[in-house]
């Protein structure tokens, strides 16, 4: 299972990364090298095996905890926006979003 330059382009787009020509090439080589060792997984018979999403589920049920519907976060806008790149009148500014 080998990746192609098209794959690199498609994935980079999905991930909003910009790779130059040489960077793309290097990435392709490195990823293919990585996926060579991933091939080992195919040899493993996993029929009927439940994926393990939460590690301690191996020894007992893990269930989502639910909290009471109480508001306890007050307005903390100033502190929260301290590291914002662009803010005006409390709004985060971004290049125009075209629908």
């Amino acid at each position, binding site marked *: 299972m080998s990746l192609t330059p098209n794959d690199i382009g498609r994935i980079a787009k999905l991930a909003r990364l910009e790779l130059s020509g040489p960077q793309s090439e290097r990435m392709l080589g490195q990823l293919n090298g990585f996926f060579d060792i991933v091939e080992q997984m195919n040899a493993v018979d996993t029929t009927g095996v439940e994926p393990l999403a939460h590690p301690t589920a191996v020894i007992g049920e893990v269930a989502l905890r*639910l909290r009471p519907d109480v*508001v306890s976060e007050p307005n*903390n806008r100033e502190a929260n926006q301290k590291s914002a790149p662009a803010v005006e009148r409390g709004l985060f500014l971004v*290049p*125009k*979003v075209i629908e």
Partner: protein
Amino acid sequence: MSKQKQASLLVQGYEVVIGFETHAQLATNSKIFSRAATAFGAEPNTQACAVDLALPGTLPVMNRAAVEHAIRFGLAVGAHVAEQSVFARKNYFYPDLPKGYQISQFEIPVVQGGEVSFYLGDEKKTVRLVRAHLEEDAGKSLHEDFIGQSGIDLNRAGTPLLEIVTEPDIRSSAEAVAYAKELHKIVTWIGICDGNMQEGSFRCDANVSVRKPGEPLGTRREIKNLNSFKFMQQAIDYEVRWQIEQLEDGYEIQQATVLFDPDTGETRAMRTKEDAADYRYFPDPDLPPLVVARSWVDEVKAAMPELPRAMAERLVADYGLPEYDATTLTQSPAMAAYFEVAAKASGQAKMASNWIMGEVSRRLNNEEKDIAQVPVSAETLAALLKRIADGTVSNNAAKQVMDALWSGEGQDVDAVIEAKGLKQMNDSGALEAIIDEVMAANAPMVVQFRAGKDKAFNALVGLVMKASKGKANPQQVNDVLRQKLG
């Protein structure tokens, strides 16, 4: 459905196929995964806490009330409430999506199946639901005030949503609106959503396609953000005509997302998003599976009110009301309760229905009031209805009584009737005397009637009513006058 009916729904020979996706904002105090408030209309980003802003290191914690609301909905539509369901990340980049993914449910939603029934005209329709799942709302982009830029407000980010998805069972724009209205009624009735469409609490997307009858499903286009029932029908009708035109001109329909422009009345495709559908869903590792025990479902079920459709059917059965009345009266639990009290206390179900749908609703609408704020209690209305039924007042006079009761002049029906002197004349002797007088004073009219001019009769009735200062019982006047005229 009969072939005739099916045929009658065709548009230029095409069958319309519609599926609905509705996002109902759940009426909780705090957000689905954070403890910030959900109230509408706050200053930008004052209700967006660290979790909502996706600040590094933040994690989601689930709101119990959102789950409870989902269970309630599942029960209301006869769906299966899953004992275990999973939250998944839907990954895409957008400025109003702070984490770069939306926490939603993908393969295993909390509510599965179900159906919504309603009347379209006098025909009962049932639309099947595929599922309803919990997810978080995104923030808002504001474009108007900035040149070349957009302002992002994340107050709405994290508000709990229930996404309700139907099978493509709907066959006309009218049916679509009827479905949407019934769904709206259900979610507000059971108290899980405030239903305020202007504030975005209830947002509908319609997936529309057309096909010649018997052919496979056509390619669908999705009309997003249909937030008023009025525009909903308009938008779907336009889209249907547009698709048919395209097909007739030999073009294929491309899958697209479209927006309806109420100013032009047209649907228009949104800028196409490349790699549209690769959301890379995977179970959210920050959230273990949601477990809903049978006992919790039973608890919620025990606390559920009677649902509108069931109640409407009961009103038809118990009170002999027409379907239209029953549907109108069950627009809200408060309205239905008001009716039942008035109907039981007066013994006049149909009259009560007419008065509530008519006089009461008219006054409430004029004053922009809700039934909860009605100044005339159901018991008082019942008392008035009884006085109409027993002939004490005419229907017209009763309206004057209502005016007085509504404006607070009095609470006691009989007292108001007395005070305003609105009692109908039931004394036949006095009535006969008046009729004789009128006939005598209008001999030419009597002659005209006897000669065949029916209109003269109404004129005479009018004169009698006037002479009695409106107090005569119209029915009685009719009967006696006819008798005397021969």
